[in-house]
């Protein structure tokens, strides 16, 4: 298994509160991703990073911000959580971001419930 650790694994939070999810990798891969998975939508890319301090938006980035201050850590922040952000969040890593040429390795997921 790829060395990816997500924390917390489960969280319940109230609407309007900030939430930060952490992803830590031990593989020294350059690319890191945050996806959310919802029934009927599959996996959707929120943000990704192609190096320290280098990040870009995915297809569902509104309401989310990210930071990458070290190669191994990629943080996802919900600045003011809403019920529509209740989801399972997956961190992923890959050696290269050039399409699917390289395997994408996934963490075990973080279950977030916004009440």
């Amino acid at each position, binding site marked *: 298994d790829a060395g990816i650790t997500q924390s917390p694994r489960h969280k319940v939070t109230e609407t309007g509160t900030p939430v930060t999810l952490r992803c830590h990798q031990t593989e020294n891969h350059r690319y890191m991703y945050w996806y959310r998975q919802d029934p009927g939508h599959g996996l959707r890319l929120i943000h990704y990073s192609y190096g320290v301090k280098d990040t870009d938006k995915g*297809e569902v980035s509104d309401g989310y911000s990210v930071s990458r201050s070290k190669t191994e850590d990629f943080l996802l922040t919900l600045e003011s959580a809403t019920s529509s952000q209740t989801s399972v969040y*997956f961190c992923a890593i890959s050696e290269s971001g050039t*399409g*699917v*040429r390289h*395997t*994408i390795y996934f963490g075990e997921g973080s279950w977030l419930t916004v009440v």
Partner: protein
Amino acid sequence: SQQGEEDPQALSIQEGENATMNCSYKTSINNLQWYRQNSGRGLVHLILIRSNEREKHSGRLRVTLDTSKKSSSLLITASRAADTASYFCATDALGYQKVTFGIGTKLQVIP
């Protein structure tokens, strides 16, 4: 929006039977991968097929790619209860580096 769409969305078979899942995509691709997700877990890579390949094998898995039809299929032969999972295709459109995943096919293998 998803580039790839799996079909069927759900599939239930008896142990020992073969399972076939299909993935259709909208625009030309560089490569296509299949992933598996056990309930409550992250996705795990199964196999990659490049756009210039037509068929690839890995153990009990057989993947085909038809670029003219913009479709791929994943065949799992002699299925086992442990194959119960959701299966996703992942594609990257030409000129667009980001990878997109389909909604997945939920496979149930009944012992």
